[in-house]
Structures are given as C-alpha cells and as structure tokens.
C-alpha cells in the first residue's frame, strides 16, 4: 500500500497540539483541504468533512485517540492518517503516517502536499495559542 511519513517539530507545548488534534471542529483551521466539518448525531468517533468547493460529504472514522496519537480513516477512500505527538528535548514533535489504498494511489502526491501544508498550519496555530 502506498504510504508516506511527514513530521515537524515545534516549541509549542504538546498540550496545544493535542487540543487541536482531538477536536475535529478545529480541523478546518489547520488541515489543508478541509473546508468544514459536521458532527451529526452519530457516535462521537465519527465526523464528516467537506472539501473546498465540493458539496460531497466525506465521512470519517476516528479509530483511536490515545497516548498522544489520533488515527483517522476516511470511510469512502480508506485513506488512513495516523497522527502522533511526542516530546523530544523540550520540543514537541508532530508526526503523521498516511496510508493510501492502491485504488487511490493517484492521490499520493496531492496528499503529500496537503499534509505538509497541514503540518505547517498545525504547528503555527499551536504556537499562536495563549
């Protein structure tokens, strides 16, 4: 299965990154490619995201939130995002593993670019927090 890793470090405390990762309502603020999200009356581990200029909903499943890790998979494309926070030498490291099903392999480069931008926006937003 095609996959890629990306990572970034920041001076922002791990708690600031964590608040942004565990709360899907904040994703449009930093996750490139997400214009808005909905949390319909469904279990708390589900949400729906919308891309800019596209009306189609993309339901998502939060598979896991534990130990500074948040794992999200798209229920349509099965693209899987494994975000991991850790503290290294008083900096916070944000790493992400993205797994793309073979049938969606053509999206690999676009996803790589979106995730790189998302990392930059995530760390910048965390650094802005009070």
């Amino acid at each position: 299965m095609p996959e890629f890793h990306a990572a970034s470090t920041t001076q922002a405390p791990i708690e600031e990154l964590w608040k942004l990762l565990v709360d899907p309502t904040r994703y449009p603020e930093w996750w490139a490619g997400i214009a808005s999200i909905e949390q319909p009356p469904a279990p708390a581990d589900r949400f729906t995201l919308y891309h800019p200029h596209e009306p189609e909903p993309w339901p998502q499943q939060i598979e896991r939130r534990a130990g500074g890790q948040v794992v999200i998979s798209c229920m349509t494309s099965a693209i899987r995002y494994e975000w991991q926070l850790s503290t290294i030498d008083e900096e916070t490291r944000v790493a992400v593993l993205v797994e793309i099903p073979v049938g969606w392999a053509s999206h690999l480069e676009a996803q790589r670019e979106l995730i790189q931008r998302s990392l930059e926006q995530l760390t910048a937003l965390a650094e802005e927090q009070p």
Partner: protein
Amino acid sequence: MDAAASAIGAGLLVDRRGRLGFRHALLRQASYDDLPEPRRAWLHERIAEVLGPERAAESARHLRLADRDELAVEHLARAAATARAVAALEEAESYLREALEIVPRDAPLLLELAEVHAWRGRPQEAATTLQRALGLIGADDAAGRADAHVRAGDWLRGAVCDPRAALTQYRDALEELDRAGRPERTRRALALAGLAWCTAVAGDPGEAARLVDQASEMAGDAGGDELFAHDLSSARGLHLLRGGGFAQSVPPLLAAAERALTCERPDLAYTSWINAASAAAAASDFDHALAIAERALAVMRANGLTSLQLHLTAARAHILTRLGRRAEARATVEAQQQLADRLGDPDVAALAAHDFGLVALATGDPATAERELARALAGTPAISRPLARLARAEALAALGRPADAEAELSATVREPIGPADLPAMLSARFARAQGLIAAARRDPEQARRRLLEAAHAWERQAGSAETGEAWVANIVDLGRPPVLGLVEPAWELDRIRIELAGLAIVPG
C-alpha cells in the same frame, strides 16, 4: 402427652412457656445419637413433611439429615427464591450452592446462581456460571437455550448494566430459535424487546425503532407480559433520550420502571429510573430528578441491591450539588463510600472515590477532591480518566499547586479517549483548566486568554446533537448514565463568564 409428662418429671425435658425442650444440649445430642439410624432418618423426613415448603430451608436441612438429598434440592431452590424475594442475596447464593453440590449439572439452578451473582455485583462470576449452564442445556433444546440467553440479557442490562453484553445474549437467543426453525412468537417477542432496548442504548437508533415495532407486532401472548411492556416502554424512552429529547423521555422511562417493579425486577426498574433521573437533570428539572432518584434508592435499599444503590447515591449527590444543597450532597457521597466499603471491590471503591472527588470539587472542597480523584486514578474503575484528570487539575489549581495541576494536564494528553470521554468537549475543559492554573499562578491575562479559549470552544458545542450520543456512550462504556458528567454547554459558559469576571486584570 403421658410420655412428655413423664420425661418432664424425670428431669429429661423442660417446659419453657409451652414449648418442650431438652434440659441440656448434651442431653439432646446424646438422645439424638442413641436413635437408630433408620429411625433417625425416618424422623427427619417426617419433620420435613410437617414443615413443608413454607419453611423450605428447614425442610431441606431435615431432608439432608435424612439422607434424602434428592428431595432436598427442590426445597433448597425454593429457599433460595424466598431469600431473593426478601433481598437476602447471600443466603440465596448459599442455598443454591448447596443444591448444586447435590446436583452439579442442573442448568436451571446454575442460571439462578448466575443471576444471584449478577445481583450481588459479581459480573465475572455470573458470566462463568452462565457458561456452565449453557454447556449443560442440549444443543437441540432451542427453547431452553433461548430462554437462558434472554434471562442473561435481562440481568446484564439490569443488575450488571452492560448493554453491549446483553445485546449479544438477545441476539444469541434469536439465533437459537432461527437455527431450530421455530417460530416461538412469544419467545421471539421477548428477545426482540430486549434487543430493542439494548439497541436503543448501544446500537443504531433507527434499528431500535424498527425492533420496537417488530416486537410489538410479534407480541401475541407476550403482549400481556409486564416485562415485555417494560422493555418496549424503556426502549421508546431511551430512543427519545438518545435523540436529545430529555424531557420527553422521562414519562416512558418512569412507566417502564413501574412495570419492571410489577414483575419484581427492581434491577430493570433501576435502569429506567436512573435514566429518567438523568434525563430530568439534563432538562434542568433537578427537583424532579431528585424525587426520581430518591424513589429508586428506597426500592434498591429494600431489595438489597447495594451496587445499584451506589450509582443512585452518586446521582443523588450530583443532583443535590446542582440544587445548591451542598451539605446534603456531601453527606450523600459519604454514604456512597460506605456502600462501596460493603461491596469490598477495589474498582468499586475507586469509582466511589471518583464520585466523591467530583462532588467535593463541586461543593468547594478541593483538598478532598484532589485526594479522592488521585485514589480513583490509581485504580481501574469505569470512569472517564481524561475528565477525572482535568477535575483533579482544577482542584490542584484551587489549592495553589499549579505545577502539580500542569502535571495532570500532561497526563491527560497520554490518556486514551473514547466516546464516553466526550472528546468534543475535552479541548474546552482543558482550556478552562489551563485558565484556572494561570489564575493560580497570578497571571490574570493568561487566565483570561485561556478562559476565553474555553468559552469559544463551548460556544462551538452549544446545541450539539452529540449530547444524546454522549449520554448513551456513558451507559455503554462506563455502565452508568452520566449524571455526574452531564453536558451542559450553557451552564459551562455561565461558569466561565463568572470566572472571567472574578479575574483581577491589572491595567497595563
């Protein structure tokens, strides 16, 4: 009479207010031992006949002494049922164990024992005993196996409060009937009603509504069954609750509780009552919530259902804090600690410590709050660990220990998060805790920024339809409705506004 008078005259017997007895216990024992064994056995059996089923425990003892164990079993089972009816669960278990020593492969007795384990707050033993019973019921006895599964489902969602496990049992019941190709409409209706209830709590809401309709259509003879009516009424109430219709859910839940009482199922009545109390609280009708909790407590107390009393006591304590009746809330949660001590289970003790900590925090006692929440977090109770850590952080901040409070926030990040932890509200709660810590560090500007961050997060959540889903997540994941963890965005916002107003902002 002449013989008795002669024995009295000889000093062997005495007349104590019209009752004859041996003058001395040793004399009695010697006389008993002197009886030839066949004669002794015959006498014991005759005594058992005279005592009859109304004094089942004594009859059983005499039958065993008469070496008629096979006759004693029925009396022991009856004695167990009598003991259960008066909430003497320990005695009930003792009789059933004795009966099973005689007939260890008796599936109905094992089912009874499994249910008693469940009522005594021992789910693991209940599960093990259930498996023993199922192992003894023949594979071709679909009706027997289905009945066992339905019964297990009933106590799993009642006494044990594990709707997921109960759902599995009801599905197993239906599979048994399907496998045997038996219509068994009444049995199916009962299993479907139980399944509808569990699905209303732990499954797809649309599916729950469909199951209620299906059970109603199949009712037949079950339609007059109070337990069946309870299941449907309760499922309707839970379905409304899950959709956020808290006030509307209360009447069907209360109706379900009364039906459960009618069929002598206080454990099922508990489930409806605690959900009704929590729903009333969620609808801000705390007086009604308190009345419901107190009625339920009285019934659980009368039936010796200590573990269910424990949860209701916590609910009562929380409702009293929301009514501003702090001293009563404190006394109530201390009573909960005593119940936990009686149960003697470390996880239950940790759960009670958690509840105590939350009430202490709400009633302005941060020292007790941080101590009790630390006890809870050191154990493995069914609580929301992230929320418990945030509460402890708040208590530590109030005690002027900001560094320790920050350590709790760091620990929160490492905790697993599930639906019952209300993840959408976590960042709001986290930000508020950060604000309180900043205030403890005498940094009002930082405190203000964090509290505003929390307020914005709560504003994003106001009117969230997740509230109903968070509700059932508590029941499914933690085995208790979230009376102590009600999601009240408006109330949270008001609290933050008061805290903001209380900050001493030094003009810069």
